[in-house]
């Protein structure tokens, strides 16, 4: 007997003006699981997450959350789904007209009706968890370094203790120690909060630390998926090349002006 996956993606197609990106992608994510998606730059990993969130409309295919097709559901159901979701954008996407703590507290105040003072306290606690001191809270995003922005965005994504969290490259731009702290934090979210997470990363140490399952996106499809252990031992030449970080192999990177 199989359980309904938390997120189920079936035959997802998405392209942009003659540039097909996702070409019939299938992926299941079970509740409480941490799934990592790896894949070359520009293969459509961010597009995949935006399709799941409904920020982009798929050209074809279905996305089921708890067995229900969200895009085809009533608005109230979509609103419910959004309240349970956290998203870390690749570029941070911090609101630059608001201070750091207002960014982190944004969802708490607007979506969960929390009072300003209480939300501020939660925000400061979440900032501490991503290694940011209280005096950062009143700064504006443009006064932060790249890595600090990433961590504020991370604090915002987990502020409301969401059930489902999407992390788009959570450790890119961080030093190795901070990257490890963030990996630990993501693991905690899954273990302590019981969240279901989908993480996109190029960082193999991240994969080893946080993944229950890994999936590789290549040429618009999930060409391989399996457990973390299987990832280390797979014979799949695409995955092996990616994991090893080698220029030689079946994946050819298109280089401008290259042969």
């Amino acid at each position, binding site marked *: 007997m199989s359980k309904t996956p938390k997120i189920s993606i079936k035959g997802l197609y998405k392209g942009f003006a003659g540039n097909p990106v996702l070409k019939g992608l299938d992926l299941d994510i079970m509740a409480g699981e941490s799934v990592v998606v790896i894949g070359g730059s520009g293969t459509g990993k961010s597009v995949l997450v*935006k399709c799941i*969130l*409904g*920020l982009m409309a798929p050209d074809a295919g279905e996305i089921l959350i708890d067995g229900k097709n969200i895009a085809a559901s009533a608005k109230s159901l979509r*609103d419910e789904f*959004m*309240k349970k*979701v*956290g*998203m870390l*954008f690749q*570029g941070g*996407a*911090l*609101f*630059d*007209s608001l201070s750091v703590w207002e960014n982190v507290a*944004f*969802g708490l105040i*607007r*979506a969960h009706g929390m009072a300003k003072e209480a939300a501020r306290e939660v925000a400061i606690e979440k900032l501490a968890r991503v290694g940011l001191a209280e005096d950062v809270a009143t700064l504006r995003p443009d006064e932060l370094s790249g890595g600090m922005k990433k961590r504020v965005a991370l604090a*915002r994504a987990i502020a409301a203790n969401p059930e489902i969290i999407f992390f788009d490259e959570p450790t890119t731009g961080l030093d190795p120690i901070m990257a490890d702290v963030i990996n630990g934090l993501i693991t905690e979210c899954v273990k302590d909060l019981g969240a279901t997470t989908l993480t996109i990363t190029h960082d193999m140490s991240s994969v080893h630390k946080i993944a229950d399952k890994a999936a590789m996106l290549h040429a618009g499809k999930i060409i391989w998926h399996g457990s973390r252990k299987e990832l280390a031992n797979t014979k799949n030449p695409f995955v092996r090349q990616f994991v090893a970080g080698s220029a030689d192999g079946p994946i050819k990177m298109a280089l401008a002006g290259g042969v």
Partner: protein
Amino acid sequence: MGFLATIGRYFIGALAEIGRVSRFSYEAVTHIVRPPLYYPLIGRQMLSIGYFSLPVVGLTAIFTGAALAQQIFVGTARFNAEATVAGIVVIAIVRELGPVLGGLMVAGRVSSAMAAEIGTMRVSEQIDALVTLSTNPYKYLIVPRLIAAVITLPLLVIVANIIGVFGGFLVGTQKLGFNAANYLQVTMDFLEASDIYSALVKAAVFGFIIALMGTYHGFHSRGGAAGVGAATTNAVVTAFILILLANLIITINVFGS
């Protein structure tokens, strides 16, 4: 053949754009009538649209009013009707120049700023982030700007009208030799309530146009900094043209008699 095809393409493109703008404004208006409204955001927008536009609108009005008095004096002197200068100034300012020039100045300042701010939020995925934080971007970004502009523009235009008339008064009394009390008397005699309604209706419509063009172009901008730049330009240009077009339509059809 190629020429006709080009015209056809432009025509169809324009129709499609009108369709998109209509859908956008329909969506925005449905959010105006459905709670919640974010009052603090409306207040902040009113401050930035209204209060911070006062200097530029005031300067425009006083210079225009002053120059107008001089020009009308020259014109009316040709048939010995100089006594009507104050009356023509007040009608020209209140019915036409106050709302139109005020609207254009605010459009230059505000439509561009709205398009740039919202456009930057679009290309840096801040609008997507709003959605993932369960906040409707129309309610949070568009509606406060529309409401604030529709309320604020009439207030600004009242100020512009008063300052414009005062500009005419200055030139009239200081340079053209009118008696101050007499000038004001003629002004009040000529001015009718319908002139003021006309100014207020126009201003509210222009306010809607200014905020609509700023937010629409910002909201639909794409393609990084260059895209935001293009959105900003388009916002100002379309706001200018629509203000002038709306002014003509309102003047002829609603307040033509």
